[in-house]
């Protein structure tokens, strides 16, 4: 069987995603978990680049790798306690977590198996930036990113207001 370069790259990225996802939840040190998460996000961005969707890949890098992970690391640095005394997790909690994980996996597998994805095709070339911009700012069918972002700004204002009221002395 002939394996193309595209497939090789995909398998490497997929292996990184799977491996680092498992490591992220099994490691005992919180900063290492954040680092493994960073690798997962990198590899996901790699898959977007492989699909020729460089805009989404770059967004993934800025927002998740450059933004959210930095935020995580920052908050870990500011609040970090001594890592050597991790309390043991109760058996009931382990059981509940296991059930939740299994249920989540079952739903995901069920949907992936039953959903018809249609024939997949890699269109050559990148998406023009014009089309992305119009889709982001448009008001047509399925184009509701602008109102969504407005609502998120409103929510942010609410959060800031809430903190301000709560912290008033």
């Amino acid at each position, binding site marked *: 069987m002939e394996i*193309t*370069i595209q497939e090789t790259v995909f398998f490497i990225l997929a292996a990184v995603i799977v491996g680092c996802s498992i490591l992220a939840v099994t490691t005992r*040190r919180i*900063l*290492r978990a954040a*680092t493994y998460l*960073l690798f997962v996000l990198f590899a996901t961005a790699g898959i977007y680049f492989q699909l020729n969707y*460089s*805009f989404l*890949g*770059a*967004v993934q*890098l*800025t927002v998740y*790798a*450059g*933004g959210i*992970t*930095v935020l995580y*690391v*920052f908050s*870990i*640095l500011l609040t*970090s306690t001594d890592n050597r005394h991790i309390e043991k997790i109760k058996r009931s909690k382990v059981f509940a977590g296991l059930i939740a994980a299994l249920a989540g996996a079952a739903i995901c597998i069920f949907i992936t198996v039953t959903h018809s994805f249609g024939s997949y095709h890699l269109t050559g070339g*990148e998406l*023009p*930036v014009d089309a992305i911009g119009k889709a982001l700012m448009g008001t047509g069918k399925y184009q509701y990113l602008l109102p969504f972002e407005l609502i998120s700004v409103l929510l942010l204002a609410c959060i800031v207001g809430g903190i301000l009221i709560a912290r008033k002395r």
Partner: protein
Amino acid sequence: MFDFSVVTKWVDMMLRQWLPESWVLTTEFVLIGLCVLVGYAIIALVLIYVERKVCAFFQCRLGPNRVGPYGLLQSFADMFKMLTKELIEVNHVDRFLFNLAPYIVIISSVLAFGCIPFAKGLEIIDFNVGVFFLIAVSSIGIVGILLAGWSSNNKYSLIGAMRSGAQMISYELSIGLSILTMVVFSGTMQLSTIVAEQADGWFLFRGHIPALIAFVVYLIAGTAETNRGPFDLPEADSELTAGYHTEYSGMHFGFFYLAEYLNMFVVASVATTIFLGGWMPLHIPGWEAFNAAMDWIPSLLWFIAKVAVVIFIIMWFKWTFPRLRIDQLLRLEWKYLLPINLVNLLLMVLVVVFELHF
């Protein structure tokens, strides 16, 4: 003007005659990677030499002058010294993160380095969201610095890393907004198209007032982004010994050092590409003979000359201004640069809408 794609196409043709498709691609990946890394190392060494000489002249000294003529081989000798040094293992650190951090920093800087159009036909990564990709990959470096500071198990390193994180996140806003101003003007994010559009006048001149403001803001924010003086609080040697890379030794320290210089080069090249026309020669519309004469100078030389000027300005900053305090640093960004930038963006939109540019 000489087009470098002739050379790359010829290499591609040669390889295709001998090898099957997938092996051609693999060989080309390896070749490009080698070229990028060699170029990266050489530029870093040259920059370190230039920095030491410029610093020396500002302080009325001679600078390196023993190794080779005019001390030209000094930074090469330093590199070999650094390569042969021991990597000291520090006790009570998270060894995995401690060893990983320099690589994250250097990978981010190499990726950003790969986006730059050096000369006509000499560009490696050319997405149609090129500028955005460049900002995205250069923002990864912060994670490496934060990890380095945390995993060193040293208070100075931690404080240095926190300062660095706060500083880089803040100034990234200014960089993004000033670049966005120019993206509004050029109407594209692809670096090769941005350069091509400047064939009859660089953006700094065509965009007049808003472009000039964006250029100044970009230079200030770019200097801060590379953690260089007067914004070098993360490694303020008089208070924090060396900030986040205090505990590093040998080549791991070398990676931080290289990345710092190369980030300066990347900042200068982006300034060149977006404001000063990249490798495009100086063209004045109507002056045919002058334009033809300018075209005789190779495009690579134009690029290097412009970058050298910008780098000299950045070095001039460092050896002229005293270091800022952390509150002054953050005030400068959030109270001055950011509002100026936002107003400037609006001004640029007006200029573009009413076509007030040249």
